[in-house]
């Protein structure tokens, strides 16, 4: 692999304090956003007294309570489900990405778009949708498909893993698709010239994707073990306890036991530490810089009729499973007349949609969350590129590895940990006495959103950025461009589409974010997710599900406008270079 590109740029080790300043500034920012809040939360496992969560200054009792409440079983279940999910999701994502990025498969634009639809359907909605379809007397039952074996299979580890796989594929896809599309034609050509068949050429390409594949595996694993939406619904009703369910049980039941939750948090961080260790061993010391200004667009393989049918069958099968059930669930609930349980013609009504638009219950929360999401996404799109770039440089040392662990550990911890950690850190009497009143403001909520989104987005960008070759940057610098110019003229075009995807991912993520919103939202300003869940908590599903349908339609519209806008507005060169091609 080392012969594939020039080595990274030579490092100039600066000794002056001015040179260290930007790095220090970045670490200080990360400390305020991530390290301090998450660290303080985790510390309560040892020292409950620190934040008035108990009487002992130092105690290991919370670990004992966590083990008693079944955390070991939960963490084992989570690790097994997380590993299986990661492997299968990455495999599915590779197939999808290959068809979308490398072949002339019909409907490539639609499949890329639907990936986003899967990504932004909340996991609890997917789980509930399937429950409604498969439960006895559910939608399948109404259609005459009475399959009790399928129902009992679904309400257990198989169903839980299945839902996680459908939710994990988009994360894996976003990690591997840009990489697959970005590997220039020259490598494939070289392989073919030397007599390799199509399959053999594939085998040449696959190792080049290693950073993206590993990034995808680690990301899906961390996202899966930190999920609560499925853990609290399908897994809980299937008597299949996952670690996050144990964590939430200690917070959701009164009295609230944050120290026990923190102890469970340590187990989750430990699991991610193991995953990261594996990843580090797998790609240590190799170079994957294959994307440069000379990169030529790969030739799309012209699929035969049977190839098209196979690809279409795969894509339609996956999206049908991933989106069909939850959409059917949400649409039927939101379109039913009050008091009816079946989707028969006579019972269909748009009453909930009319009520929703009339009451304005959705407009203010949607506006608030959309504004927060846009601000946070803009900042994340910039910072995540910078951090991913930092993580993927060749000279990445201990600091990059610490950063990597920090990011993945944060992904592995459920959102409520971040929410509670922010309250611990920024609601300290000491902070208030300094005249800083951040808790209960949109600013703190925005910071927490930023902290929650930055790790996932950065990790997704690590794949594509590992492939950016430094030689064009060096060429630009040799020709007299300053660092900013080199960044704007050389690096940015190569990662522009990744930035756009990072923006969209963060935007949709923040728009629907629940646990941090619940803990930190400013009095009187209701985020979208809080408005939806309080509406869903009432006995009628209709208004809540109508809100979900409208909100998802809004998010999809934003995604559509952004993708179409990029296609029309971005300079042609950017699109040619853009690492994630349709």
């Amino acid at each position, binding site marked *: 692999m080392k012969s594939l590109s020039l080595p990274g740029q030579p490092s100039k080790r*600066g000794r002056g304090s001015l*040179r260290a300043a*930007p*790095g220090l500034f*970045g670490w200080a920012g990360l400390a305020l956003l991530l390290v301090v809040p998450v660290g303080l939360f985790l510390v309560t496992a040892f020292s409950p007294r620190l*934040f*008035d969560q108990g009487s002992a200054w130092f105690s290991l009792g919370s670990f004992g309570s966590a083990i008693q*409440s079944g955390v070991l079983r939960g963490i084992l279940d989570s690790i097994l489900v997380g590993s299986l999910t990661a492997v299968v999701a990455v495999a599915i994502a590779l197939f999808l990405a290959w068809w979308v990025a490398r072949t002339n498969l019909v409907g490539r634009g639609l499949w890329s778009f639907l990936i986003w639809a899967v990504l932004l359907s909340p996991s609890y909605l997917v789980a509930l949708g399937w429950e*409604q379809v498969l439960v006895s007397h559910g939608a399948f039952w109404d259609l005459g498909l009475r399959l009790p074996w399928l129902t009992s299979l679904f309400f257990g580890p198989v169903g839980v893993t299945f839902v996680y796989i459908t939710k994990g594929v988009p994360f894996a896809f976003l990690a591997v698709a840009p990489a697959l599309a970005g590997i220039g034609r020259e490598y494939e050509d070289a392989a073919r010239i030397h007599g390799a068949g199509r399959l053999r050429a594939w085998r040449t390409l696959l190792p080049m994707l290693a950073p993206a594949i590993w990034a995808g595996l680690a990301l899906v694993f961390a996202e899966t073990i930190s999920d609560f939406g499925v853990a*609290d*619904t399908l897994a*809980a*009703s299937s*008597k299949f*306890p996952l670690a996050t369910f144990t964590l939430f*049980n*200690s*917070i*959701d*039941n*009164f*009295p*609230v*036991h*944050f120290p026990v939750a923190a102890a469970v948090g340590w187990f989750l961080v430990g699991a991610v530490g193991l995953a990261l260790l594996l990843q580090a061993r797998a790609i240590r010391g190799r170079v994957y810089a294959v994307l440069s200004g000379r990169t030529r667009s790969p030739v799309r393989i012209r699929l035969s009729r049977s190839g098209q049918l196979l690809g279409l069958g795969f894509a339609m099968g996956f999206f049908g499973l991933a989106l069909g059930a939850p959409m059917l669930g949400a649409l039927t609930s939101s379109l039913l007349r*009050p*008091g009816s*349980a079946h989707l028969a013609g006579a019972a269909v009504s748009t009453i909930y949609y009319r009520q929703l638009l009339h009451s304005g219950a959705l407009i203010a929360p949607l506006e*608030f969350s959309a*504004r927060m999401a846009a*601000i946070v996404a*803009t900042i994340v799109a910039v*910072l995540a590129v*910078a951090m991913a*770039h*930092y993580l993927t440089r060749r000279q990445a040392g201990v600091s990059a590895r610490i950063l990597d662990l920090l990011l993945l550990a944060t992904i592995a911890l459920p959102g409520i940990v971040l929410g*509670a950690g922010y*309250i*611990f850190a920024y*609601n*300290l*009497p000491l902070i*208030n006495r300094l005249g800083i*009143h951040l*808790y*209960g*403001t949109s600013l703190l909520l925005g910071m927490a959103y930023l902290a929650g989104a930055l790790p996932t987005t950065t990790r997704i960008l690590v794949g594509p950025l590992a492939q950016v070759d430094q030689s064009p940057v060096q060429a630009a*610098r040799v020709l007299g461009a300053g*660092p*900013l110019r080199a960044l704007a003229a050389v690096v940015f075009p190569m990662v522009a589409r990744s930035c756009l995807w990072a923006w969209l991912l963060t935007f949709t993520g923040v728009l629907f974010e629940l646990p941090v919103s619940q*803990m930190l939202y*400013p*009095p*009187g300003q209701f985020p979208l997710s809080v408005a939806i869940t*309080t509406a869903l*908590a*009432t*006995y*009628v*599903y209709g208004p809540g599900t109508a809100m979900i349908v409208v909100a998802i339609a809004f998010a999809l519209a934003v995604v559509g406008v952004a993708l179409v806008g990029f296609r029309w507005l971005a300079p042609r060169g950017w699109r040619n270079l853009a690492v994630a091609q349709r």
Partner: protein
Amino acid sequence: MAATRVNPRQGRIVALILTAGVVALGALLATPARLVGAKSQDVPLVVYSAQGYDKNTVAAFQKATGIPTEIVDDSTGPLLARIAAEASNPQWGLLWVDGDEAFAALDRQGTLLKHFEPKVNWTAAAKKVIPADKSYIPTGFTLACALIYNSAVVSTPPSSWSQLTGAEWRGALGMNNPSVSGPTYPCVAGVLQHAGSVSAGERYFEQLKANGLVIHDVNGDTLNALQSGQIKLAMIQSSAAIGAAEDSSLKVAFLNPETLLPSVIGIDSKVSRQERLEAERFAEYVLSRPGQHQMQVGDPHGDSLYWPVLRGVNPLPALPQFAAVPYQVLNAYSWGPREAALNNWFTNNIVS
């Protein structure tokens, strides 16, 4: 020259961070809403509430008294988690949710203002719920475990708890999972209390399970199962049951005894004197006729379907007379601390 002086990567990162800073600043300036906590002269009353009628009641209170009032409206679980996380520096002034178990626990922690009781004409049931140290007050009653049944398939609903384990109701009864649905714990605790002991109550639930008890996560799922014919009857909170029965073939019945589920107000003991006075005025307002009116119009098909705690105030017409309901009161101080353990037992032994 620049390349020899400044590490280009660091320069890039600085540039990116600066750009992000400019965007953040721009957004900050462009956002008119409350962004940073400017402490004004007026101390606003901060209400944490999970009631369906809270927003209109808070607005009406603010209009009537001129006291600036802010509301954090959410489900009970997240609100209590938020209060617990704020323990070292509480930001809430008043908590208003269903169920007094959490209030008993907060009282034990010394979190609630004691010895405050509005001078109102309480009903007999309300007097049974107010704790000796007056650390919280009831504002209305629902029942934790009302029986809702499909009248199309059930002509005579059961009238006692023991009938539910009979062959007639095999596979026909549903309820929520108390680990997921907040108001279901008082229902479970009520059944245990009526059974005479925790172990006797647990045996009763095991009998229900053997008789095909169907557990769903929350009310919506359970009601859906009832309407789709998967089950014939279900135990859910009375306000949800009566609301669901308003325009369908569903009907509501009461077993003997039903467990009272009070909606409760508690005031933070650490608030400033001014906010404490504001919170007390809020509690008094809620228990006044205008306040009761707001509670009854805010969520007419849900939480507004409660029985008043005040003599002389009638419930909404959809509710039967309270005198006709056989009820029992749970001791919040003894049942509250068992919530986590019992929910855990329920999940492990009854949910399947």
